[in-house]
């Protein structure tokens, strides 16, 4: 079990409590409002995995200005809601991407640019890139094109915002539910060297090292 995973679902317990006290309706309205706020404010960590990295500066700067929709870039995955993977992923990159994704806090979303994360694109027969990204981490929106223009990227943002607003089931929920599937796939391509391996707690070694 990775340390990025916190299994307990607080939402459902809260829902039960609220339903008991007859406030389920209020909860639903609250949830709707929160979803609206979530859709209006998206912090992005832009991971320039491939050629699409060059499309992100125009998307965020003067010409296309993603900030007007509340989409802002941040530096660390801890603060981010959305990770943009822009292009093909080598195995070496995939390891870092998984790590970055697991360090993000829920709710979290993934957008990929280009055709490479969908089916390998022009690198389909390379010994060192992956073909299907959604085997390893769940993808919310694929923006296709080789490479997609900033307009398409913005359209991807709009699509994602719609989904968040409607409260649709997002990738991170699938990831939590089908953790074994994703972990098995990751192990298959990364050869058992998946970081982080934080099973042992260095600070409690005398207690058997159980975290």
């Amino acid at each position, binding site marked *: 079990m990775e340390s990025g995973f916190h299994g307990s679902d607080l939402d459902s317990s809260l829902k039960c409590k609220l339903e008991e006290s007859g406030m389920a309706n209020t909860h639903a309205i609250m949830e709707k409002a929160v979803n609206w706020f979530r859709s209006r404010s998206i912090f992005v960590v832009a991971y320039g995995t491939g050629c699409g990295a060059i499309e992100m500066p125009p998307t965020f700067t003067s010409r296309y200005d993603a900030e007007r929709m509340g989409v802002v870039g941040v530096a660390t995955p801890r603060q981010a809601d959305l990770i943009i993977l822009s292009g093909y992923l080598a*195995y*070496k990159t995939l*390891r870092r991407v998984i790590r970055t994704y697991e360090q993000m806090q829920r709710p979290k979303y993934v957008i990929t640019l280009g055709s490479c994360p969908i*089916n*390998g694109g022009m690198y*389909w*027969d*390379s*010994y*060192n890139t*992956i*073909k*299907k990204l959604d085997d390893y981490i769940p993808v919310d929106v694929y923006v296709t094109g080789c490479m997609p223009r900033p307009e398409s990227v913005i359209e991807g943002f709009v699509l994602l915002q719609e989904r968040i607003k409607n409260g649709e089931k997002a990738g991170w929920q699938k990831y939590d539910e089908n953790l074994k599937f994703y972990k098995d796939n990751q192990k*298959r*391509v*990364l*050869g058992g*060297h998946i970081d982080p391996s934080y099973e042992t707690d260095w600070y409690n070694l005398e207690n058997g090292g159980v975290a």
Partner: protein
Amino acid sequence: MIDLSSKLEKLSLELVEKNAHLYKVTVKLENLESILLSFLNEFGYITLDSINCRDDLEEGLFTITYCLQTEKRDHVVMVQTSIDRENATLPSMHTLWPQAEIMEREMHEMFGVDFPTHPSLIDFALEYWEHMPPMRRDFDTLEFVNSMNPFRDQRGDNLDVKVEMKKRREEKKAAKLKAEQEAAAKLAAQEQQNPDSEAQNNE
């Protein structure tokens, strides 16, 4: 260049001219180190451009080429040698040219050439690579890719588009034909059934 070739003749080596800027010397593996040393110290080839490896699968050899340049940068001399493919071992040249260290690391990773005297033979571009070195010609890339990363089930992207489209069109046509036939058969069956029922009613 006459100068160099006369010097090389003393070492009983032949300088082959490829074009005005490119020359080649073929040496034996056991002389490689001493000849490279004399290239650096005596002939003034201070720059090692690259170390190249060619996989001669048919002859069971790796052909290694050291590309060298003088300070003038007006020509390149390729010093070529061959090593056994199965037991590929080379002396490390990082003591002569420090840049050789990283080039040899790459060669080790991509072809599996071993450098016993190399100081840091760690991962270069790949991480935790456990399979055959990927640049060897007997490494079947397609098979490897398919075993590691199967294509999407829903779409047969590894198929020929033209054939596939033709096949689909035919399938569609066949399906349509089948549907028509079925419809006709159904109709016929109904027509058949109706008299039967009538007949039953009559009974």
